[in-house]
């Protein structure tokens, strides 16, 4: 087994263990943060040494080392790094949990990286669980009633979901006789359209698997957990849930759909495509409509994040209509949208981490007059929200535009129209927050203090939001350098 191709992941696992050891043995708690950051950078360096080569498979096809996986390795490492920097102050307030926080965040990121690389139903399930179990503990970290409540909700629903996912994967294996995604595709490909009814078990298995993955990305109707868990979790973990965990879900959902459901456009693949399109339309509509009524900022962002999942799902819905089972041929739009989404979420949640004193009950009114108390925070929040809304000249607009173009090219014009109408609905609640920030009288007069690290995160994310829209060639060059072909 060519384990050396898993260097970045192994490096991250070792770092997680070292972090726990440092936390136990060393009195200087800041060392934990330094070690985690060093580990992330080292892992990124190792990922760099792997990039650019031809696609390979690791461990008899358990994992893939392709441009798609490497893209996600960099993405997750980057987000985790920024998330750790953003939560420096927050974690310092909980000195006892310093080591656990960093170690678990690192294992969650490790799980996410493995998820993006997995191409066998065994590795898929194990990687997803690695992320999920790390996050169960992190959600409960604060140990107050709110945090515990949401952790219990998350664990119970997550456990049910794991059972569904496992059942689905087992059925898929049972009816296709293969555990690797490629094997499943071959088995599916040999099914004749007229015999599809005889393979009801496979259809049920696929449907259950898709439901299990839809839970991870909080798509309607598997979204109920998101608002409660987002609200109750410590904010850095909310940030992590809404970016790394969600994008990991997308990475495997996209790979699963592309690699097993590209059936040369027959009735079955269209059915799956349309089902995903309907889920996508329902997610954005429900997410946006429910967000309007929210007062808690984290609940509002949870619903907004459900809506964002809807936009990203649009593209995955077109995948079954594609024909070739390879993630390489996948358009840049989804990957571009993910970067835009991650940058915007980073900006917005970092502001919340810095500004919120009471981590568990933050209403939008607490942000009144933020512009007067801290212009940097206000600007970052505004840019992040405008990017989520899809307003030029921010990269969120470009991401949305490319997604719409690609979806329209696959003939799902009705879905584009629903999405476009949804952007208008979303403008209402995003602008309401922006209005609160800039126009209301300040909620309090205390200065908002923060160390340099979270501010750095804000600057990086805002800079990225603007830069990638003005110079989208940078992103395209990056994708080409990774070896993703348009």
């Amino acid at each position, binding site marked *: 087994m060519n384990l050396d191709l898993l260097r970045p992941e192994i490096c991250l696992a070792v770092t997680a263990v070292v972090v726990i050891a440092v936390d136990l043995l060393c009195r200087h708690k800041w060392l934990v943060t330094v070690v985690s950051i060093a580990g992330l950078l080292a892992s990124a360096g190792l990922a760099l040494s792997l990039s650019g080569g031809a696609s390979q498979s690791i461990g008899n096809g358990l994992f893939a080392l392709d441009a798609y996986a490497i893209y996600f390795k960099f993405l997750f490492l980057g987000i985790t790094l920024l998330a750790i920097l953003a939560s420096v102050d927050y974690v310092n307030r909980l000195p006892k949990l310093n080591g656990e926080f960093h170690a678990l965040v690192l294992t969650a990121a490790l799980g996410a990286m493995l998820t993006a690389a997995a191409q066998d139903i065994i590795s898929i399930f194990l990687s997803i669980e690695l992320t999920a179990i790390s996050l169960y503990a992190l959600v409960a970290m604060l140990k107050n009633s709110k945090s515990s409540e949401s952790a219990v909700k998350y664990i119970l629903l997550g456990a049910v979901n794991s059972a569904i996912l496992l059942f689905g994967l087992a059925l898929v294996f049972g009816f296709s006789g293969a555990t690797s995604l490629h094997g499943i595709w071959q088995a599916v490909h040999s099914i004749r359209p007229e015999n599809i009814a005889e393979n009801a078990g496979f259809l049920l298995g696929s449907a259950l698997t898709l439901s299990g993955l839809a839970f991870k990305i909080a798509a309607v109707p598997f979204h109920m957990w998101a608002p409660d868990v987002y609200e109750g979790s410590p904010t850095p973990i909310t940030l992590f849930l809404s970016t790394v965990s969600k994008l990991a879900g997308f990475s495997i959902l996209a790979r699963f759909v592309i690699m097993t459901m590209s059936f040369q456009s027959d009735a079955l693949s269209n059915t799956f495509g349309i089902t995903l399109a309907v889920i996508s339309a329902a997610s954005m509509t429900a997410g946006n409509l429910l967000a309007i009524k929210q007062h808690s900022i984290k609940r509002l962002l949870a619903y907004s994040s459900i809506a964002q999942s809807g936009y990203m799902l649009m593209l995955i819905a077109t995948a079954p209509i594609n024909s070739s089972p390879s993630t390489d041929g996948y358009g*840049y739009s989804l990957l571009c949208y993910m970067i835009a989404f991650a940058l915007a979420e980073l900006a917005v949640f970092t502001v919340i981490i810095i500004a919120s004193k009471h981590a568990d009950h933050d209403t939008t009114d607490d942000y009144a007059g933020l512009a007067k108390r801290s212009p940097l925070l206000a600007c970052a929040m505004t840019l992040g929200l*405008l990017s989520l809304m899809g*307003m*030029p*000249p921010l990269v969120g*607009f*470009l991401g949305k*535009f*490319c997604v*719409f*173009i690609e979806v*329209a*090219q696959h003939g799902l*014009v009705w879905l*584009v*129209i629903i999405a*476009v*109408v949804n*952007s*208008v609905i979303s*403008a*209402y609640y995003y*602008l309401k927050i922006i*209005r609160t920030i*800039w*126009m209301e009288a300040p909620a309090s007069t205390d200065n908002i203090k923060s160390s340099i690290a979270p501010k750095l995160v804000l600057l990086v994310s805002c800079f990225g939001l603007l830069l990638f829209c003005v110079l*989208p*060639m940078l992103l*395209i060059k990056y994708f080409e350098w990774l070896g993703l072909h*348009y």
Partner: protein
Amino acid sequence: MTHILSVIIFLPLVAAIALAFLPRLPAKAIKYSATAIALAVLAMSLHLFANFDRSLSGMQFEVINPWIPALSANYHLGVDGISLPLVVLTALLGLVSMLISWKIETRIREFFIWLLVLESSILGVFCSLNLLLFFIFWEIEVIPVYFLISIWGSGSKRNSAMKYVLFTLAGSALMLAGIVCTYYVTGSLEMYVLEPGNGMGSIAMVPVMSSVPIFFMFLAGFAVKLPVVPLHSWQPDTYSDAPIAVNILLSGALAKMGAYGIIRICISLFPQSSQRYAPIMLTLAVIGIIYGGILALRQTHLKRLIAYSSMSHMGFVLLGIFALGQTSMVGASLQMVSHGLITALLFITAGIVIEKTDKPAIASMGGLARQMPATATFFVLAGLGALGLPATSGFAAEFTTLLGSFSSTVVDSAQWFTAVALLGVLLSAVYILWTIQRVFYGPALSGFDNVRDAGKLERFYCGLLVIIIFVIGICPTILTSVIQNSVTGIVSWMGG
């Protein structure tokens, strides 16, 4: 100077960013530097106007750089005879709105930043020749207007601002869908590729089944901005609650974005659909003229009256455009500029009156010509322009438009629409003269004894606008010579 258009567009934006980051500047420095930037933009746009080759019909001062090659999205700028007058108009109104805003006292720095961003985005819309770039500038405009109205406005400013944003975003969302569909059916976002003269790549080659919905998606976006009648309900609220500087840009420049978009995209790219649905649009134009005029008669607030009068006069622009004739479209282009100047002057003088008397209702005013003779003169001159008195630009523009639409052979029964539209001229004479009489004449009211007249600065920019209105009115060829050839190029696809 190959990049002069880029400089014109981005200078205000760069200045806005600089203002945002420079440490605490004194208020005066901010006001002077913003005004200097607006002056520089005006100077450069006049330079363009002077060096524009009037014998050509195509784009001039073009810049094209690849931006996202995979989407055929280029950084492509250029001006022709239709957009150039609007660029100059925007630059002029930008300067005037800076001067007006010297009075602003709260959050000065933010105000000028948003005003500069707004100017940049409007100029960008008029110069973009790529649909994606066009849309980006079109969309950016919403944010500054939202802030400008909801912070520095009056009355129920927040609701008006939100109403404006939601209407505009709904329109531009449809436009975005239109752009996406255009790319889907043609594979291009470049306007010149999509033009009918271009054979294979053009939208004219697309089956009518798919091009008609796209035409209407674009039209909806522009109609909200213009505004065309069923989509106009944001306008009176927004105009009456916005600060005067924003009123000027909204009515003078932003409304023109709608009309310009209709000419540049709906008419130029979809000539067949335009011709087929022209009667519907002409009906809406005439309804706008008459309905706006009647509502203006019934208004009790000065700014709302001007808002409806503006809507009525923009109806002439729509009439001229969709009559689809050479003369009518030249008239419509002229009317865009003339309406921009006249409405701006009306708003400025109304703003002075409201500011000095502190009363927005017409009923509570009267006899103000005694206390503020200069303001009264300017208002009367602007009003005479609005009702189309010969020698003002309003006359030249509306006369050309009506003449053109009456004689248009492209659309059947354009004569009847013109005949009904003439009633609008009559209506505007009634409400303008009646307003002048109610506000400035009649017995002097004792409450206004201490009201002061317009100051030196105010007289300066009002005088400037009056001079331009009369120069264009007496010698409209200054503009028509620029507009003429570009309109010929567009109308030639109509086959009329």
